[in-house]
């Protein structure tokens, strides 16, 4: 299972003030706050860690069909420039992030060896882009491919009720839209 998140850094800069009193304390563990304050690019690291929490939370809600707001319980560790680990209760989520200066993208998965395809683009037309990718992969026409959402909003794609995706995650923020799919 996979979960993703994208943050448009230009928008994040105006939409949120990470230096606001309480912002970090409520959502980040004390270890994470140390990482944030010890780095030169605190702003980007705040959003990288945030996207890791969000991507892991998306997997958790798909699995457990439960919603809540507890970002500080998703404990993040940065293991390399782009990889990380998120711990929540007894679970471990593996993350891989892309920071390109204008956005932060994170893909989380339960198993390190998960093969997933992600595509970052504009914030609109994501559904059509997914269908085109699935057409390319399966040879089925986009017009016959259909999206269905679970009660908790997790999408999956089907051809005549036959699932084409094992897991699918969609995020948009500001100018960016991204999808990640794991094929069946």
């Amino acid at each position, binding site marked *: 299972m996979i979960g993703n998140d994208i943050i448009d850094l230009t928008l994040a800069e105006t939409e949120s003030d990470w230096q606001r*009193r309480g912002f970090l304390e*409520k959502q980040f563990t004390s270890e994470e706050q140390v990482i944030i304050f010890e780095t030169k690019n605190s702003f980007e690291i705040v959003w990288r860690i945030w996207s890791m929490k969000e991507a892991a939370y998306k997997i958790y809600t798909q699995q457990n069909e439960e919603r809540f707001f507890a970002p500080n319980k998703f404990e993040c560790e940065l293991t390399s420039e782009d990889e990380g680990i998120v711990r929540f209760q007894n679970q471990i989520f593996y993350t891989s992030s892309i920071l390109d200066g204008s956005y932060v993208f994170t893909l989380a998965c339960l198993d390190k060896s998960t093969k997933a395809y992600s595509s970052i683009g504009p914030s609109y037309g994501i559904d059509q882009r997914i269908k085109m990718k699935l057409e390319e992969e399966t040879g089925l026409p986009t017009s016959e491919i259909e999206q269905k959402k679970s009660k908790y*909003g997790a999408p999956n794609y089907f051809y005549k009720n036959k699932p084409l995706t094992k897991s699918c995650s969609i995020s948009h923020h500001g100018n960016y839209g991204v999808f990640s799919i794991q094929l069946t």
Partner: protein
Amino acid sequence: MKREELITSLKKIVKPYIQNEEAFECLTEETDFINDLKINSANLVDVILDVEDEFDIEIDNESMEKMLSVKAALDIIETKLSEF
């Protein structure tokens, strides 16, 4: 403070973060911050911090976890206010 007064104050707090004007106009207790008002999850903490400032209360982690809807927020504010 009456429930209606609380809703009015809460509406003022969430207004800067909403991305669905229509859902905001017909806000009820059942309105969900993320699914209905389309508040960005990264702004949910701002709603919580603004609520703390406005009502001079502290929202602990346990309460914060539930703050996804107008109803949950109102219940939490009422409980915290009655603790004084």
